[in-house]
């Protein structure tokens, strides 16, 4: 209980809401969260108000923290379903329950090495607080950002301020190169002689990032965004097959053992299954089993 690295649960007060391209940017006063936050961590928000029928939390990467008003956090989100629709309709002074910061942060390099930060869509958001810390450690930073179209590339402008270079790709070519963001990665890694890649985005993107990093023999630190109904480790819904230090595969909860994993530890091809060699995998298929 408590301890500096334990999360807090507090009522968050909406300070501002604004549109950023396809996204909504929400700043919350959430005392206690900001001071504990480390880049890569996320917050879990309760949605729907007091009588809500939506029991799952909605998780969001933190885009920025400040110490104003006892601590603010900023999240950037896309409207996707009922919960984010509700969030988008919030107005300043509305209150919602915030738990955070949650999850393992990005590991940081001890020495000032060259870092590539790659993000797809809103996945760029968590790269910014990371960039701030890496800058303090004097690491050269190169951003690689992408999305479906220019509206869905988040943070290109901010990245220009924060990074030594920014490369952008969109599926429809409306901003930067045409194509998928991962297509840019090998070129950038080679050009800047990157020592590590940090990534956030959909699984397919993270898998491709991991592959590229492996080809160049550098580590990839990837932050996953799989559905996390609780965010606190109690529901067991967010598991991924990950190879542990013991060499065997464990079904790890991405909310507490992640969201940041070393890319090569994740068994990307087996996501959505229980690999037969995972610890505790069923020996034979058992049909009709109840939880």
């Amino acid at each position: 209980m408590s301890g500096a690295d334990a999360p807090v649960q507090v009522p968050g007060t909406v300070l501002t809401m604004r549109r950023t391209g396809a996204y909504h940017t929400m700043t919350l006063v959430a005392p206690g969260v900001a001071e504990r936050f480390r880049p890569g961590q996320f917050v879990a928000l309760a949605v729907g108000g007091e009588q809500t029928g939506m029991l799952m939390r909605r998780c969001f990467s933190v885009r920025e923290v400040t110490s104003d008003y006892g601590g603010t956090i900023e999240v950037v989100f896309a409207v996707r379903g009922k919960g984010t629709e509700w969030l988008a309709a919030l107005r300043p002074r509305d209150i919602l329950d915030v738990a955070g910061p949650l999850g393992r942060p990005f590991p940081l390099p001890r020495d000032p090495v060259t870092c590539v930060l790659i993000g797809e869509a809103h996945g760029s958001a968590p790269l910014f607080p990371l960039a701030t810390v890496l800058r303090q450690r004097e690491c050269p930073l190169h951003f690689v950002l992408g999305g479906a179209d220019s509206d869905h590339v988040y943070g290109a402008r901010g990245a220009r301020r924060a990074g030594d270079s920014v490369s952008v790709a969109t599926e429809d070519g409306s901003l930067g190169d045409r194509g998928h963001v991962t297509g840019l990665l090998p070129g950038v890694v080679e050009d800047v002689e990157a020592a590590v890649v940090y990534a956030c985005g959909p699984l397919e993107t993270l898998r491709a990032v991991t592959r590229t990093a492996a080809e160049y023999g550098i580590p990839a630190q990837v932050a996953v965004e799989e559905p996390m109904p609780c965010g606190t480790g109690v529901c067991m819904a967010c598991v991924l097959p990950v190879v542990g230090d013991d060499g065997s595969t464990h079904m790890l909860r991405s909310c507490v053992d992640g969201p940041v994993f070393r890319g090569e530890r994740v068994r990307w091809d087996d996501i959505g299954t229980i690999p037969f060699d995972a610890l505790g995998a069923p020996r034979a298929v058992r049909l009709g089993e109840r939880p």
Partner: protein
Amino acid sequence: MSVLETRLGQVGLPNPIMTAAGCGGAGRELGRFFDVAKLGAVVTPSIMSEARAGRPAPRLAETPSGVLNATGLQGPGIGTFLSRDLPWLNEQGARTIVSIAGNSVREYAEVAGRLADAPGVTAVEINTSCPNVEDRGLMFAAHPSAAAEVVRAVRAHTRRGVPVLAKLSADVTDVVGVAMACVDAGADGLSMINALHGMAIDTATLRPRLAGVTGGLSGPAIRPVAVRCVYQVHAALPEVPIIGMGGVRTGLDALELLLAGASAVAVGTVNFHDPSACVRILRELDGALRERGIGRLSDIVGLAHKPAGTLIRRIDPNVGVDEPIEQETLQ
């Protein structure tokens, strides 16, 4: 705080609020939000003889005021539980109710046997909703005789002073019949209800939303079914302590289950929504009892069965309570 003390057969608990099996981790996770020793007890996820990887994702789906789950009892197995999780709970000073599961009577008995010498086991709860591989995969809870057989085996492998609780499913024609069979077989108490058998289909992919196809429906949506089961079973077996659960979200929800006949109340799905739910509910329940002038928790267990006009101060819903409620007691 003595107002909240309760009993489950041979053991006393400082208060009636506990986590529900599989919904509060092994204590550590919620322990980051509050002191787990403050709860009446921590109920563990159902422990099996070996480690289990569980089911593939997606494992959970949101439904109106509910959650569907097919997690498949992922867990470390009894060995790791005893060496890693139980000692941590004991260190915190928590009271631990160990939920156990198996796919055969032998497996239940084996897990119970390994628990028998472990220090700090307050009670054993038998999850009877597992499929019986020796009987076409039918869940033990579906048939009085199958449930009773498991209870008998676990009771035989458990120390005298440790209550054995049978956890029942509401997915049966006659929950009272199953309850009676379990008590006759030696259960010291009953837990109810487990999640209802449900399913959801994704209207975008046109496929089941859970990898496991069907799953368990839990959360406030099912609370009326839980209240009904507790009420029916308490009417039939008034002396048998019941841990009530199913959709408890507030202190008043907990009170509802106590009035129906539960001696303790477990909080499940709502922990996902609110990691502090258990301590909040405990605080709210304490306030609600004081508001109503209830001096002892045991005075209201099953009170809804009794005719109106007992000693308890009923609250006029049109007026509410006049005096400000004292909230000092907890925390």
